[in-house]
């Protein structure tokens, strides 16, 4: 039943698994996990900080194992044998690629040169044994042992005129595993406020905004002026304007036609044509685009294009207005002008939430700041919500950019104190009830 190749494979795997066991020990994992075929690759990948690659590798290895088993029972000349062999060959290429990724992660964790990846791929058993037994090879990056902040359990009371956000959790499935993207965000934003949304890359800013608008639903309750945005999404979505970071407009259409089509889509269907045209003209004038009405979008400057993109959403006069980095690519003067316009919109009784990475040049215009940060589980959490003045005191920083640096991860050049602030703010929330 077993031939010489099978016996050779068995001993190769055994050597490899012994090596894995000692590597696991160095990584603070249980050694016996190294002897569970296929699963041990996942544990190794987790240790190499390549968890997703590990999960994919497990699936690929399962496919390989099943196809190996199936072709043992097939005659070599059959069409099915040929097809499965071809498929297996393709999967084997993927296995090598993912193995290389995991080995690359291991090199990072153990502070070794990336050339080791090649040695790992060619002589996996011996390399794992050497890495496991050698005292010279020790991990240089350790996994965070700090605990994530507790859930506050707070549920903020609904406000009549404004936005009430109670996000318990926002999850997504990532390759068979549930991932928590956001957790425990509770806040209320009164009408007429211009709010700054601050957070490092991957902190969940856009996920938070999508959850707030109901575009990507979370385990949450979001009320806008008393209306449930989730339950009444189809009618309420016209009351929410979302301006994306990129200027997503057809470049070969004119400014006027772009705005007219936006008006046709976003304004109520029974609105008079005359009234619609009047609204288009008002918005054109309001955003300083009247003179450019017949210009093609592709001919506009960055600032003009951004204003048009905002105007497209503003045409329906939404109560909640959200802008994702509206000042990206704009110089200071133009950006300031744009934020002053947003301040005016907020003053007209709207709620305006803005993401920006250069908040300090316009900090005086904002009422509040929301600081999002990744906790140790890499979940987006609320690190602070309140006025900018109080935020400076809370973080003991004199500018919003320094606040951002304080919550950013160390590998991003920040101070890596996100978890500390999340814990402190959660405690503060709990205390406040």
């Amino acid at each position, binding site marked *: 039943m077993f031939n010489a190749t099978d016996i050779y494979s068995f001993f190769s795997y055994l050597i490899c698994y012994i090596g894995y066991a000692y590597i696991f020990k160095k990584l603070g994992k249980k050694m016996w996990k190294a002897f569970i075929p296929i699963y041990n690759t996942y544990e190794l990948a987790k240790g190499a900080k390549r968890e997703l690659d590990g999960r994919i590798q497990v699936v690929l290895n399962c496919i390989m194992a099943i196809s190996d088993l199936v072709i043992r029972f097939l005659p070599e000349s059959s069409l099915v044998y040929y097809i499965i062999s071809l498929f297996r060959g393709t999967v084997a290429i993927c296995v090598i690629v993912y193995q290389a990724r995991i080995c690359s992660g291991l090199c990072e964790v153990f502070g070794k040169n990336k050339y080791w990846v090649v040695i790992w791929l060619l002589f996996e058993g011996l390399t794992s044994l050497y890495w496991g037994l050698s005292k010279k090879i020790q991990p240089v990056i350790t996994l965070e042992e700090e605990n994530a902040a507790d859930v506050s359990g707070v549920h903020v009371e609904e406000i009549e005129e404004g936005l009430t956000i109670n996000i318990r959790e926002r999850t997504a499935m990532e390759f068979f595993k549930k991932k928590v993207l956001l957790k425990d965000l509770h806040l209320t934003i009164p009408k007429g406020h211009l709010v700054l949304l601050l957070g490092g890359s991957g902190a969940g800013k*856009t996920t938070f905004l999508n959850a707030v608008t109901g*575009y*990507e639903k979370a385990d949450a309750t979001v009320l806008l002026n*008393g*209306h449930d945005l989730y339950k*009444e999404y189809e*009618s309420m*979505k*016209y009351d929410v304007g*979302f301006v*994306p970071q*990129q200027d*997503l*407009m*057809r470049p*070969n*259409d004119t400014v006027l*036609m772009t705005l007219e*089509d*936006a008006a*046709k*889509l*976003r*304004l*109520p*269907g*029974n609105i008079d044509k005359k009234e619609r045209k009047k609204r288009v003209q008002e918005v054109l004038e309001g955003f300083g685009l009247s003179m450019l009405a017949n210009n093609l979008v592709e001919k506009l400057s960055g600032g003009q294009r951004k204003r048009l993109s905002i105007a497209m*959403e503003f045409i329906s006069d939404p109560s909640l207005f959200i802008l994702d980095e509206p000042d990206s690519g704009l110089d200071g003067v133009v950006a300031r002008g744009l934020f002053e316009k947003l301040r005016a919109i907020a003053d007209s009784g709207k709620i305006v939430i803005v993401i920006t990475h250069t908040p300090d040049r316009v900090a005086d215009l904002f009422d509040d700041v929301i600081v999002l940060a990744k906790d140790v589980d890499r979940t987006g959490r609320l690190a602070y919500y309140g006025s900018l003045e109080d935020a400076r005191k809370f973080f003991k920083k004199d500018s919003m950019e320094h606040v951002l640096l304080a919550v950013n991860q160390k590998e991003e050049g920040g101070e890596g104190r996100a978890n500390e602030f999340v814990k402190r703010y959660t405690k503060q929330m709990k205390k406040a009830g």
Partner: protein
Amino acid sequence: MEREIKEVKHKGRIAQTGIYLGKLFRMFIFQSDWKVLPMAAVIAGLVCFVVGNNLFVTMEGTLLGTFALSCICIWNGFFNSIQVICRERAIVKREHRSGMHISSYIAAHMIYQAFLCLCQSVITIQICRMMKVTFPAVPQITASVLVDIGITLFLTTYAADMMALMVSAFVHNTTTAMTIMPFLLIFQLVFSGGFFSLEGFSLKLTNLTVAKWGLTALCTQADYNHLPMVLLWNSAYKLKDIEINLDNKEEITNTVKDELSDVFVDQEVLNEVKDILVAEGIDLDKPLSNEGAEELNLILKREGIDVQIQGKKPVWEVMHYIEENGMRDELLLKSAEFNQNPSYDGGAFNVLKCWSVLILFIAVFSGLSVISLEFIDKDKR
């Protein structure tokens, strides 16, 4: 507390289709979309120039020509729409978030693409007429052959167009779309079922291609199975100068004397030539071989007599005989009878069947476009 929900109606699906249709036609007039029409004319002109002479005239010419016409349709259809959705996918996502109905967006594209395909089909027919392509005499469905063939060209182009639209809706960027397109194109051409001989499973696969149904409809409309087949005649014509090697086959052929009598009608010249050849040691009663004919030609040329004495050419003689007796056309039709394709039989019924399948393709492809684009919100940021 119970609150009043404001019920504001926004533009419905039909009104939104109108908005997008307006946008697309603006792009057609003011931007480069109109360029697909002269491109269709150029492609049709090239194809007619190469295969137009025998299109709808002979069996081989019709198969080659209708295959080329199907290729034009598929090419035009693919190029019309392969990039239209994927190039503005992020914009579509934004507009969908703002209340755009995907079905309206696709419907607008379907109407606009139908207009493009119609224009391209009319242009192709017109170019064929200008290039003096002989169209079939009898219409199958409508009162006009041009309308019949026009409908087939339109449906083939439109089905290919909708297939490309579906690909454009599925993929996320133009690079992927343009990578997939050649594979689809090759699949359509190889599995068209008419031009390449396929068997078994491969033959069944042809049912899934737009090219097969377009080609079948065109061949049926051309009455392919009742056209003459010229392949045999043309091949025989190429063999007309081949002489039988008469070495070792003396009993079946002319002597030198006989051949000379055929070539030289004037008796005096004949006698003079015979004297020359006898003086050169040629045996006039010997059977004339190919090599012998060459030797005679050399001797006579040296003597200043420029004639070509040839060996036996049986193919030419048979062809000459058939033509002299008016049997050529009959032979061509007889030869076609052995090469008929039952798929191209059935007249109007078969044409209607092909059209129905093409319409089904159009419906399926457009439906899949809508379904795939409905998931646009799931796109990664």
